[in-house]
């Protein structure tokens, strides 16, 4: 950070890399940045391409014939799409809320120095970072014993807590909340719940934002839980829907055939190629628009992680 302010000083000006090198570096980064951006642009342009032009001449980096058919189709198609959007939004909202509550409460308790069970709870949080039961065992426990198969909870609960996040919270509470604040509240007769909800949480917005954003993005982007636990198409999230559209071209059309239109006719007329990419854009757009604003939270979160190991 200090480099920024001292840039104008004579010392730093003298110390800069040469003009030529600077240009070469810029070119390299422009190339890399485009490499990261172009694929998303391609998906967007396919979603905006006319279906028959795709069928004739394939995908293009820029659309040859512009058309909003894919989005029109999705809007008209309705039920499956809105349902998937609903599942995604619900899972993201509920998961983030539950995750933040579970993570910060444990983080707060672990940050209290004179709590009797501190040692035990630390181990409970810590051991899973080293050893886990593995996919098969977790799968059977979650689906058979806990009965999560084909429920919305299978998408929410397994991802709610991560030991890493709990440790970030504990470190934050330990370093930023003065002991005196908690003690004086205790002396005034406030219980721990009251202290946690009315004193600790409101002054901990930075860490809530960091953890909340991490959780929000991981819930929105999750497809693996759906692949494992969800067979019921009504519980498909956007990611699961896109996944099934990618592996099965006719999934959208098959769903439409229940609406009484002839199957063959629909398959022939629906914008399959562009519709797939349109779903991808519906998934990507909120993320791509939101993350630049939250980047600094992510970076601070990542840095805490990098420093803590």
């Amino acid at each position, binding site marked *: 950070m200090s*480099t920024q302010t001292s840039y104008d000083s004579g010392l730093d000006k003298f110390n800069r890399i040469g003009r030529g090198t*600077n240009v070469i570096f810029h070119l390299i980064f422009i190339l890399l940045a485009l490499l990261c951006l172009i694929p*998303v642009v391609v998906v967007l342009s396919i979603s905006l391409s006319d279906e028959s032009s795709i069928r004739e001449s394939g995908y293009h980096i820029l659309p040859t014939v512009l058309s909003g058919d894919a989005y029109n189709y999705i809007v008209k198609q309705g039920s499956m799409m809105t349902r998937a959007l609903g599942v995604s939004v619900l899972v993201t909202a509920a998961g983030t809320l539950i995750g933040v509550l579970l993570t910060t409460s444990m983080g707060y308790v672990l940050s209290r120095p004179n709590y*009797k069970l501190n040692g035990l709870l630390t181990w409970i949080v810590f051991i899973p970072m080293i*050893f886990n039961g*593995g996919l098969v065992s977790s799968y059977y426990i979650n689906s058979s014993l806990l009965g999560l198969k084909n429920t919305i909870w299978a998408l929410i609960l397994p991802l*709610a807590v991560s030991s890493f996040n709990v440790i970030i919270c504990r470190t934050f509470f330990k370093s930023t909340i003065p002991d005196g604040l908690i003690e004086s509240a205790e002396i005034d007769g406030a219980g721990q719940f009251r202290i946690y909800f009315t004193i600790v949480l409101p002054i901990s917005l930075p860490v809530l934002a960091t953890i909340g954003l991490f959780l929000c993005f991981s819930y929105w982007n999750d497809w693996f839980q759906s692949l494992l636990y969800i067979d019921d198409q009504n519980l498909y999230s956007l990611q699961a829907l896109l*996944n099934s559209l990618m*592996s099965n071209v006719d999934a959208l059309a098959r769903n439409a055939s229940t609406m009484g239109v002839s199957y063959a006719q629909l398959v022939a007329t629906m914008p399959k190629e562009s519709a797939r990419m349109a779903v991808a854009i519906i998934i990507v757009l909120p993320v791509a628009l939101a993350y630049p604003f939250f980047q600094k939270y992510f970076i601070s979160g990542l840095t805490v992680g990098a420093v803590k190991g």
Partner: protein
Amino acid sequence: MDARVDRKGKRTRWRKHDTELTLLALPTAIWYVLFCFLPMFGVIIAFKDFRIHGNFVHNVFNSAWVGFKNFEFLFKSNDAWIVIRNTIGYNIIFIILGIAVPVTLALMVGQLHSRKAAKVYQTMMFLPYFLSWVVVSAVVWAFLSYDKGIFNQFLSDFGRSPKNWYMEASYWPYFLVFMNMWKGLGYGMVIYLATITSMDSTYYEAAVIDGATKWQQTRYITLPLMKFVIVLMFILAVGHIFSTDFGLFFQVPRDSNSLYNVTTTVDVLVFKQLKTATVGMASASSFLQSVLGCAMILTANWVVRRVDPDSAMI
């Protein structure tokens, strides 16, 4: 501080405050028991002839012990060698490139004259990190699809015949390494850049006064100061050498059978065995992965402790 503290400074009595804190931590503790500790005990199904249907607890207790039979089957299958080679091979490449490239780029981006441009590049390069593998797989499909893909159109523009990329195993190691770099580059850069910006600027001022060039500063100040972060990232990555990103190896190649030899890693194998209901072998592979992963993490941590005790996890 506390009235009820004995002479050694230890509290002796359980107080109301302990009860409340326990209640506050209880939901999370229950979560840990259900989602982390129960599966740890569930690993015994690797040593049993486990049946899928019916009551889970009943099955676990009543299925016959088979000892290491499941592991025997696993190692006798043709998969074992391919999967181990792929998992460790890809990880070695990922570790080397995953450190060399982001470190180099972080060093470069820190040197750009324009801070604003550097920020823009970083933001753009961070984008792939926030895309899910399903979306990435759609992106890759747009480029590699046989009849419509952009790559094949380039080929035909140059008068070459199109290729069926999803059947050409020889290209996929490169594709997978590229996609892995593409998705993780922005993240890696942030971590190394954070280390670089937190360095004490007086080192550089002294070096400039002594007439050190930019290259000499990088070589003798920045890199040595970054050494511990690099070593730490290296060792953490080594600790995960038996696991791979399932999305990269399953979603991106679209589970194509022709690519089996170059895309199947432990995670993909476990998932496929799980879905095809060869439970015995799946639980054996999954058990091995957990145990070896644990061993690697502990070893890695032991090494870190010897190199730099402050960075050790435990």
